[in-house]
C-alpha cells in the first residue's frame, strides 16, 4: 500500500520499479507470477508423467472401460456378470456408494437426533451413559470401528449352526438373511396407490394449514393424512388380490438358506459403523442446536397454552433446525466420503472397484481422476440439496 506519489511530484517516464511499488501493477504482476509458476509446475508434472508412462509402455485413455472386467461383485443393485465391462462394474460401485451413503445418512440422522434429545433428559444416568458412548465413538478412528464390527459379524456361527431370530431372520457369518418382498403382476397398482396416498396426505395437510390460518379451526389433519397413507394402499392391496407377498428364507438340512434377502456382513458392518460414528457427531450438533433456543421461548410457549410436545414441535425445533442444518450438511458429506473406507472390509463401492480396476489395468491416472469427479459431484449434489432445504427453513427477515 506504499504510495506512489513521491514528494517530488508524479514520477515521469517508465520505471521498472513502479511495477512493484504501484499497488495496481503489483497485483497484476504477482498474479502473473503465481499463474506462471502453477502452469510451469503442471507442465513439469505432465512432462514427467509422459516420460514415466512411456518408460513403462502405458497409455493414457478411457478405452479400458470397454474391456471385460472379469471381477466378481458381491453386492450389486443392477444386474452384473463378471464378463461385463469395467464401465458397468464402476457403475455398480457407484450405486453401492450411493446405497451405503443413503442408508447411513438415514440411520445416522435417526441415531443422532435420538441421542441428542436423550442427552437433554432430566435423567442423570441416561445422560451420562449417552455422553460416554458419544465421547468413545467420536474419539476412536472410524476405520478401526468398521473393521471391529466386521470382525464381530464374521465371528458369528457358521452356516451350519445358523442363529435364528424368530421364524424368518437368520444370522450367520456369511450374512443376515430375512424375508424379501415379492412383487407379482398387479403390485404396481398398490405402489401407485401408496404414491397417491402420500400425495393426497400432503394436499390435505396443506389445505388444513391454510384453513387454520384463515379460520382458526383445527382439523385432525395428521390422522387424516396417516389414514390416507395407510388405508389407501391397503384397500388396493386386498382389492387386487394380495399381489405382494413375502419370500421367507428356509434352511435345508445343511443349514444352507434358500430365498429371502441376504445382507452381507461387510455391508452391515460398514453401515452400522458409519451411522453410529456420524450419529455421535450429529447428536452433539442436535444438542447444541436445541440448547441454542433461549429458555424464554419455552416459557412464552407455555404462557400461550402450548403443551410439552407442541412446544417442542412448533417452537423449539423450527428454531433449533436453523442452527442444526448447516453442520448437519457437512456431517452428511463426511459420511459419504467416509463410506469409501468400505475398501478395508472388501465391500465393493466406487473406490473399492476403482482400486481393483487400477490393480488389473494399471490405469491409475484415469481411475483417480474418475474418483475425484464422482466424489466432488456427489458432494456438490448433497450440499445443493441441503442448501435448498436450509433456505426453506431459514429465518425470513423482512
Amino acid at each position, binding site marked *: *500500500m*506504499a504510495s506512489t506519489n513521491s514528494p517530488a511530484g508524479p514520477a515521469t517516464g517508465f520505471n521498472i520499479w513502479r511495477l512493484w511499488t504501484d499497488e495496481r501493477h503489483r*497485483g497484476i504482476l*504477482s*498474479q*502473473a507470477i*503465481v*499463474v506462471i509458476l*502453477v502452469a510451469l509446475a503442471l507442465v513439469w*508434472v505432465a512432462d*514427467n*508423467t509422459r*516420460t*514415466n*508412462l512411456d*518408460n513403462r509402455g502405458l497409455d493414457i485413455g478411457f478405452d479400458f472401460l470397454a474391456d471385460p472386467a472379469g471381477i466378481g461383485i458381491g453386492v450389486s443393485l443392477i444386474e452384473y456378470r463378471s464378463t461385463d465391462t469395467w464401465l458397468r462394474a464402476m457403475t455398480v460401485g457407484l450405486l453401492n456408494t450411493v446405497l451405503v451413503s443413503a442408508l447411513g445418512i438415514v440411520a445416522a440422522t435417526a441415531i443422532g437426533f435420538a441421542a441428542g434429545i436423550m442427552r437433554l*433428559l*432430566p*435423567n*442423570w*444416568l*441416561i445422560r451420562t*451413559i449417552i455422553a460416554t458412548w458419544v*465421547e*468413545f465413538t*467420536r*474419539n*476412536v*478412528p*472410524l*476405520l*478401526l470401528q468398521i*473393521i*471391529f464390527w466386521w*470382525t*464381530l459379524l464374521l*465371528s458369528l456361527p457358521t452356516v451350519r449352526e445358523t442363529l435364528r431370530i424368530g421364524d424368518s431372520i437368520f444370522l450367520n457369518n456369511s450374512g443376515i438373511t430375512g424375508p424379501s418382498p415379492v412383487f407379482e403382476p398387479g403390485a404396481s397398482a398398490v405402489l401407485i396407490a401408496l404414491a397417491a396416498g402420500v400425495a393426497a396426505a400432503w394436499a390435505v395437510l396443506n389445505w388444513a394449514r391454510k384453513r387454520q390460518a384463515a379460520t382458526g379451526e383445527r382439523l385432525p389433519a395428521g390422522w387424516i393424512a396417516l389414514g390416507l397413507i395407510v388405508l389407501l394402499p391397503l384397500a388396493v392391496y386386498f382389492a387386487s388380490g394380495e399381489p405382494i407377498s413375502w419370500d421367507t428364507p428356509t434352511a435345508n438340512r445343511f443349514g444352507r438358506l434358500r430365498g429371502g434377502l441376504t445382507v452381507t456382513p461387510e455391508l452391515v458392518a460398514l453401515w452400522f459403523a458409519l451411522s453410529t460414528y456420524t450419529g455421535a457427531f450429529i447428536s452433539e450438533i442436535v444438542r447444541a442446536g436445541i440448547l441454542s433456543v433461549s429458555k424464554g421461548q419455552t416459557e412464552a410457549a407455555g404462557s400461550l397454552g402450548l403443551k410439552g410436545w407442541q412446544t417442542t414441535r412448533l417452537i423449539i425445533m423450527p428454531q433449533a433446525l436453523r442452527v442444526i442444518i448447516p453442520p448437519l450438511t457437512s456431517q452428511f458429506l463426511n459420511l459419504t*466420503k*467416509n463410506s*469409501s*473406507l468400505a*475398501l*478395508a472390509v472388501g465391500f465393493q463401492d466406487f*473406490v473399492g472397484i476403482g*482400486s481393483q480396476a*487400477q490393480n488389473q489395468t494399471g490405469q*491409475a*491416472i484415469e481411475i*483417480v481422476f474418475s*474418483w*475425484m469427479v464422482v*466424489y*466432488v459431484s456427489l*458432494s*456438490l449434489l448433497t450440499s445443493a440439496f441441503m442448501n435448498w432445504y436450509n433456505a426453506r427453513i431459514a429465518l425470513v427477515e423482512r
Partner: protein
Amino acid sequence: MSMQPFHRAQKDMLAERPPPATTTGTLGWLRENLFSNWFNTGLTLLALYLLWTIIPPFIDWAFIHADASGSTGRECTTEGACWAWLDQRIDQFLYGFYTASEYWRVNLTVILLIPALLPLLFDGIPCARQLRYFSLAYPVIAVFLLVGGIGLEAVPTSSFGGFMLNLAVGLSGIVLSLPVGILLALGRRSNLPAVRILCVMFIELVRGVPLITLLFTAAILLPMFLPENWSPDLVIRVIVVVTAFASAYMAEVIRGGLQAIPKGQYEAAQAMGLGYWQSMRLIILPQALKISIPGIVNTFIGLFKDTTLVFLIGLFDILGIARSLQQNQDWIGKVDAEGFLFTSLFFFIVCFSMSRYSLNLEKRLDTTNR
C-alpha cells in the same frame, strides 16, 4: 363457612428451618435427577439394568478371567481376554520396525513434545518466552531425532510403524497444515482473482474427495508425476498428501475466523498505514486465529484419527500392527477384541484430551455474559 376472628399472631421471627431432607443432599439429588416421576424412574431402572448386563461381564472378561501368560494364542485357555501377546508385541505396537536400540530417540521426541506444547496451550507458564523458541525449534529437533543423520544412526522412514507412525504423520500434518491453511485462507479472501480462484479450486477439490483417494494418489500417482530418479519414500509422500488434505479443512476453519473479524479492524489497520502482510500479521490473524482455535483443534483430532488410513496403502501403523497380530497363525481368532480395544485406547486418550482442551478453551474465550 363463617370467618373466625383472627386470634393468634406471631410476634417473633421464626427460626429458619432446614429444607425437607428429600430435596437436599444425596437424597435430594437422587430424587431430582433419577426418580423425579414414574417415567424418569423407569428410565433409571432400565439404564441400571443395561449397565448391569454390560459392565460386570466386561470387567470379568478384561481383568478377572483374563490370561496374560503364554507365547501363543493356544495357551490362552481361560474364558476371559487373552493379553499374553502384550509382552512380546508391545514394542511393535509402539515403535513398529524402528531399530530396537534406538527406541530412546522416539521416547525422547515424545517427552520433548511436552515442553514444546505447554507454552502454546496454556497461559502463565514460567519462562514461556524462552520455551516458545524451543517450540519453534521442536519440529527440526524431532525430525533429526527420528530420522537420524549427523552423529545419530540413520533410521529409514520405511521402518516407521506402530503408534509412532501415527504420531509422526499426525504431528507433521498438524505442524505443516497450519501455515499452509493460513495462506490458503488468506488466498481465498484475496482481492487478486487469479490467486483466489486457484485457492478455491484447491480447497474445494481436496475437501470434496475422501482421504483414501488422496492416499492412493500418494502411493501410486506421485511417483508417476515426479522424475524417475527422484522418488521420495512412501511415508514422506503420505505426509505431503495428509498435509494437503488437512490444510484445505484448516483453511475453511480459519476463513470462518477471518470473516468474524469486523471490517473496522481491516480499515483501522489500513488507516494506520500498515501494508497487507503487516496488517494481517499484526492485526487480523492474531484475532482470527484466536477465535478459530476450537475449530483448529477439531481439525487436528480428525487428522489424527485419519492417520489410521495409511494402513490401507500398506503401511503398518498401530492398526496395521494390530491386524497383523490378529491374522498371525499363533494368535488367530484369540485376540480380535483385545487388539481393537488396546488400539482404540491410544486414540481415545489422545483425541479425548484434545477435545477436552478445546472445550475448556472455548469456555475461556467465551466472554459473553449468559
